[in-house]
């Protein structure tokens, strides 16, 4: 019996365990495997294989029964407003994991292999010393234990592999990186860029740095990824590997080493704490189908489960040493974490430019780096409330864009085709 237990334990022992297969989990898996560690990657959701598990990736607009709109009955099951027919397979139904919203909270969850790396907006701006030094300089919160210089080489390491497009703008508060050619700004963005340059010395509009391959390098081709095709259908999953996702990039790279074991449908229950050694020694999972509880062991454990779930796992990891959750001596676990803020919005309408248009689609956007509280405290709040403005400029060529036409109907279809050019162009932002 004793031998059997030892064998079972050995079978379930790895050099490292990574919890979560999204952006950071994928990176952890790649780095650990490349360095020769036998790594177990745990994912609570289903398997999503690059290309073959993107069911809508090459569908035409007319192939969607409701042209993208999700039927009411289906919508109710998900209990949230933003849903599309094209990407419904990534969404979580409300009763799958109910939660209390005291204030509106859009909890974007990616419960599948690749996680939110399939759903993200692919904006990849670097932090600068203005960000790292903010708390110490302005006297709030706790000083960061690192500075930009510590992390800059790692930014480069990641950027080269992921493929980041951008322009070298030479801004101290938004450092340049290892950039592939930038994506052009449109006429209106170029205009605003000029207006800002003329009127301000501290405000710029630049090409957002984004995780899209605009000119594939050997390292990208080795991953089986190619040039961004400017389809703007990214969230369906990109069969070209044009943007960075764990599915297209880090996970297959880790798998190629032969060191990775990926276990989807594995909901992590808690981290096992060895009271004698005073160390975390493994992970308890519940198999999503069999409901069986299984333990895995490793010396190195990475928790990459996203802001909310990483906290939940630690809170659930109760031991004699940590009765309120692993590492929760200060009682801060599950509090003061942050998710993406979607609530700040501004929009504007720009007249003119009616003789100009765009060709192909821009998967990125213009970007206005932070300009408050940079060199001096010029507001009544500390740090940065809105760090930057990321502007997805939707060009509404009225009548014809995105299936929600705004042009006045004219009974003649021929004339209607012309009203594309007759309206002002609208730009909006979040």
């Amino acid at each position, binding site marked *: 019996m004793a031998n059997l237990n030892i064998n079972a334990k050995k079978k379930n022992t790895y050099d490292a365990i990574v919890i979560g297969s999204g952006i950071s989990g994928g990176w952890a898996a790649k780095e650990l495997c490349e360095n020769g560690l036998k790594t177990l990657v745990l994912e609570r959701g289903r398997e999503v294989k690059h290309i073959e598990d993107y069911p809508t990736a*090459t569908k*035409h*607009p*007319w192939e969607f*029964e*409701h*042209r993208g*709109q*999700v*039927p*009411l*009955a289906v919508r109710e099951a998900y209990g949230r407003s933003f849903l599309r027919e094209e990407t419904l397979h990534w969404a979580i139904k409300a009763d799958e994991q109910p939660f209390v919203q005291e204030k509106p909270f859009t909890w974007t969850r990616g419960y599948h292999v690749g996680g939110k790396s399939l759903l993200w907006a692919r904006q990849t701006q670097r932090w600068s010393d203005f960000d790292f030094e903010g708390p110490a300089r302005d006297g709030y919160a706790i000083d960061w234990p690192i500075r930009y210089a510590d992390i800059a080489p790692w930014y480069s390491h990641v950027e080269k592999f992921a493929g980041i497009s951008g322009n070298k703008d030479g801004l101290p508060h938004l450092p340049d990186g290892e950039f592939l050619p930038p*994506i*052009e*700004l*449109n*006429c209106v*963005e*170029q205009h605003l860029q000029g207006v800002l340059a003329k009127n301000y010395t501290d405000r710029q509009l630049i090409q957002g740095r984004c995780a899209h391959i605009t000119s594939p390098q050997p390292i990208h081709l080795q991953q089986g990824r190619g*040039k961004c*095709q*400017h*389809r703007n259908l990214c969230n369906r999953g990109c069969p*070209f590997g044009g943007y960075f996702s764990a599915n297209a990039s880090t996970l297959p790279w880790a798998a190629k080493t032969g060191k990775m074991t990926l276990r989807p449908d594995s909901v992590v229950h808690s981290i096992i704490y060895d009271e004698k050694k005073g160390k975390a020694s493994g992970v308890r999972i519940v198999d999503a189908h069999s409901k069986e509880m299984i333990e895995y062991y490793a010396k190195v454990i990475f928790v990459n489960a996203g802001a909310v779930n990483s906290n939940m796992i630690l809170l659930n990891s109760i031991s004699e040493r940590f009765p309120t959750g692993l590492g929760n001596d200060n009682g801060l676990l599950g509090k003061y974490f942050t998710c993406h803020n979607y609530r700040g919005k501004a929009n504007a309408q720009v007249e003119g430019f*009616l*003789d*100009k*248009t*765009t*060709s*192909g*689609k*821009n998967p990125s956007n213009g970007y206005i780096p932070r300009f408050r509280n940079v060199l001096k405290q010029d507001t009544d709040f500390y740090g940065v409330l809105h760090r930057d403005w990321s502007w997805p400029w939707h060009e509404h060529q009225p*009548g*014809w864009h995105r*299936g*929600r*036409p705004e*042009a006045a*109907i004219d*009974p*003649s*279809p*021929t004339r*209607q*085709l012309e009203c594309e*050019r007759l309206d002002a162009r609208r730009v909006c932002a979040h």
Partner: protein
Amino acid sequence: MHRRKSIKNIALLAGGLIALPSWAKAWSLESLPLVSAPLNPAAQNTLALIIETIIPESDIKGAKSLGVPAFINLMLADCYDKKTVDNVEKGLAAVESLATTKYQQNFTNLATPQKEELLLSLEKGSDTNLKDFYSLIKNLTIQGYTTSEYVQTTFLKYEMAPGHYHGCVPVKS
């Protein structure tokens, strides 16, 4: 949609698709009567005429031949709440009664300019319910029309994978 589901279920019971007669496989969105459509046949007929008036057939295809009426019935059945659909029903009845009051005829029998005039009067009128009704049907007509394969590929230079992005080019290029 229930009907389609039933057909599928029957097919499964009957031992799979192979056992299906040819008619069962030959249906399309256009040919299939939408049993669950919220509108009665007369209302559907008025709706189809409105859609046809908004984007008629000409030297290019119109909304009717691109199956827009079936699309809108489907959207009304699946994607809109009862209040909106009720307003559409009332709007369609109002169109018929306006036709009778103004022209002493059914909407079906009106000449195209009269139909256009009547519809534009809804858009310009002061009745917000009628405006909402017309605006919804108009937008759905444009949506169904412009997202069709024919319009996308013939007029809108639809490309699944453009492969490039130019930010600022002349409209006529």
